[in-house]
């Protein structure tokens, strides 16, 4: 049997390079484009077919999912600031969700199983929170490093601890999504490999597990997209409210 991590490797399909950068088109790039076009296409379909007072099926799906994210943003960022950040957070949710779900189609590629992709998302969000913090509070923003109610003697110890916990945020945000997707797909691959390499008498057992874990993976695709967005909201809310 081949290496269970084999299907995470990226092989370029079309070789391209621009000013010394390798911009070859691979399966991962195509999966990302497909995810983008599914999200865009779905919402354009809703808008193009006319937003009605009595919504059709597709409009109900779009309205419920957007309302769900709106509630989340208002809860963590505050109702006054919510409209500014709502489009960004909704985009993250739908894009991550689409990419997770595309990975569930056999033969396609899960781009969220690449640490580079999730790392870039998380680093972007981290830099954004720093910008928001400095724009809103100026130099007062450094106050985030000293939690309220800390005795003066503890401050030299608290500052490195707070810096570490600050840097841990984007890392844990990216590692969580990447690890969950990679682990899930590896388990599926190993179980299906067992099902294929054993006779039918025993093989039905791992095959049954493959089917069950496929269901679990779809649930995890939703949960991980939800966690990624809710934590983005929490981090942005934290720098806006400063304790």
């Amino acid at each position: 049997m081949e290496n269970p991590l084999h299907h995470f490797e990226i092989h370029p399909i079309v070789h391209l390079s621009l000013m010394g950068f390798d911009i070859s088109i691979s399966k991962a790039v195509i999966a990302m484009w497909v995810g983008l076009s599914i999200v865009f296409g779905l919402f354009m379909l809703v808008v193009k077919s006319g937003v009605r007072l009595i919504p059709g099926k597709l409009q109900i799906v779009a309205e419920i999912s957007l309302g769900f994210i709106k509630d989340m943003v208002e809860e963590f960022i505050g109702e006054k600031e919510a409209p500014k950040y709502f489009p960004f957070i909704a985009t993250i949710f739908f894009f991550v969700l689409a990419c997770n779900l595309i990975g569930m189609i056999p033969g396609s590629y899960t781009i969220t199983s690449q640490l580079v992709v999730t790392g870039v998302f998380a680093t972007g969000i981290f830099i954004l929170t720093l910008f928001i913090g400095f724009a809103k509070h100026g130099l007062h923003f450094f106050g985030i490093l000293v939690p309220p109610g800390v005795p003066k003697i503890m401050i030299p110890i608290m500052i490195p601890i707070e810096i570490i916990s600050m840097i841990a945020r984007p890392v844990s945000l990216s590692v969580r999504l990447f690890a969950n997707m990679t682990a899930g797909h590896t388990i599926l691959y190993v179980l299906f490999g067992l099902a294929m390499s054993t006779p039918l008498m025993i093989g039905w057992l791992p095959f049954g597990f493959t089917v069950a874990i496929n269901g679990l993976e779809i649930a995890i695709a939703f949960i991980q997209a939800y966690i990624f967005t809710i934590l983005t909201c929490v981090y942005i809310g934290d720098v806006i409210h400063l304790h």
Partner: protein
Amino acid sequence: MNKGSEFRRGLSIAFRLGTELTVAVMIGAVMGYALDRYFNSKPWFLAAGVILGGAAGCLNVYRVSKEITVENDKDQNNGV
């Protein structure tokens, strides 16, 4: 708050805590190691970094737990 969203919130917190704790220790260790390389002072910064990282991880988990208690109190007050 309905039952479904409460369950989702619980799941999201449960999935968070594990990585929250480990990643903080890892970050502390990596930062300590980098400082050691820079100042040529093996192994002091690494040791301090691991301990501070553990503290940071505990702090993160403690904050999440505080969030949960605050929300529970809010819900109970709404119910009464």
